[in-house]
């Protein structure tokens, strides 16, 4: 079982690499270089803050764009081009296929994010000439960003298991936006009553809780991230991803291929 999932994951990774998904790293590097003159304009203390805010926001945006747009095409492209036929006519379960695809994209993003992280630290070193303990905090923020990708790939996969790529992208994007407002949604829901209130409350918990996965602004000021948050966020992401992948498998298993 694991060899098949691994083979599918590896093939997905290889496809992403050959489809030049990792080219975004070049843009990331250019971005870091291009901001150097900008950094000169502001005072020493804020330079570091800006560098962290800018590079981590870029990591997040690049990652989310890849998660959504590669994520929605993971399965739909294989159905559309019928490359799925020779795969599923082998002893490969549909669940294994989905899981393999998921792991492949997650792996791609892991490599991508690690490469960007290296870039961030190199830029920091060039700027400050040495590392401080606070710099390790940045890793936590990046780890949380990666958790965001994990959540969003799951959603993209889920949507693409029953709707067209365009709609899936739209859904996934709106889930990302709604997820960034999740706390507000919960607040609103708590104030409404009756059946609608219940519905609103359920909806506010179903959207991904993304706000607590974005601590970029905090780490840019070396603010402490509680260890409990790291644990809870990790667990939350695993659960949310499990739920979305399971739902995707349930839908995909019942689906006729074109």
């Amino acid at each position: 079982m694991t060899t098949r999932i691994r083979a599918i994951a590896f093939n997905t990774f290889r496809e992403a690499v050959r489809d030049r998904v990792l080219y975004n790293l070049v843009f990331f590097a250019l971005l870091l270089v291009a901001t150097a003159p900008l950094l000169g304009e502001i005072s020493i203390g804020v330079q570091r803050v800006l560098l962290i805010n800018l590079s981590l926001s870029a990591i997040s945006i690049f990652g989310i764009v890849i998660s959504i747009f590669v994520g929605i095409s993971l399965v739909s492209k294989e159905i559309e081009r019928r490359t799925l036929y020779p795969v599923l006519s082998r002893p490969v379960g549909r669940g294994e296929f989905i899981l393999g695809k998921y792991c492949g994209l997650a792996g791609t993003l892991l490599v991508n994010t690690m490469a960007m992280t290296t870039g961030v630290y190199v830029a920091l070193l060039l700027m400050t000439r040495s590392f401080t303990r606070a710099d390790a905090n940045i890793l936590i923020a990046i780890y949380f960003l990666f958790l965001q990708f994990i959540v969003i790939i799951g959603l993209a996969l889920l949507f693409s298991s029953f709707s067209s790529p365009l709609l899936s992208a739209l859904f996934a994007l709106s889930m990302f936006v709604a997820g960034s407002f999740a706390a507000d949604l919960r607040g609103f829901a708590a104030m409404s009553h009756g059946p609608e209130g219940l519905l609103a409350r359920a909806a506010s918990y179903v959207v991904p809780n993304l706000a607590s996965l974005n601590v970029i602004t905090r780490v840019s000021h070396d603010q402490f991230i509680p260890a409990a948050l790291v644990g809870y966020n990790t667990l939350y992401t695993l659960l949310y991803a499990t739920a979305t992948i399971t739902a995707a498998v349930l839908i995909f298993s019942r689906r006729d291929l074109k």
Partner: protein
Amino acid sequence: MIAAGVLVVSMAASFVLVRKIEAVYPSAPMEDVLFISSPEFVKRASLGYSGLLADIYWMRVVQYFGRKHQRESKEYKALAPLLDIATTLDPNLVVAYEWGSTFLDQPPPSGAGDDEAAVALIGKGIRNNPNEWRLYFTLAFVQYLGQHDYLGAAKTFEEGSKVPGAHPWMKIMAAKMLTDAGNLETARYMWQNIYDESTDKNLKQNAELHLASLVVDQAVPQLESLISEFKARTGDNPTSWRDLIASGLLRSIPRDPTGTPYVFQSDGHVVVADWRKLPFITRGKPQ
């Protein structure tokens, strides 16, 4: 069947986790969401990238101020709202409070001359960053120099001195506010502190100008008293610095902090050659 079970369990467990996360990482209070001010709206719309947006706003503030300053405009209408947005997006951007309140407070052309806005901004800074003693220092400063509220300044210095890690002279300043607030030496002491402690280029330059202006404020009365002394000794009005040097009252031609000689006016007054280079002087301004 198993899959459906996994789906339900994992979804339900994720709800529990959301509550746990809320507990350790609380989100903004509801009223902030309901009564959306424009900075608060910008923050919501930033989808979590508020830090980056804050930095962008912050750079805009600095550029806006620099541009206006160069043209010697007396209008800094957008300064306060821009600062408000930047600090709402990133409430921990300490430099924006320090810088912002200094330049909001300062009279035109080197500032907006709006000490109410300055106090509001720095107050927000202290609420968001109660452990930053420098913000107390900045507030006290605005109270002292802008509002001449010496009692208030003394209180703020006192409060700030209690913040862990506060500089020891915060306590000294609290006392000085009560004893000799009107003293030039006190002002000089404060600007020197800002000059020494500031990491921001603009704040440092500003402090330097203030220090230079204080030098002028001190020098002009001294020079004028020398002129009166010459008159008292010789009964004649001096016609140039040379007369004073010849009589031994001066050793060389006196120069202001920019290196330019002071101008000797025929009516016995002393002024600086170009007061624009020393915008904060209160003495020695040409009529």
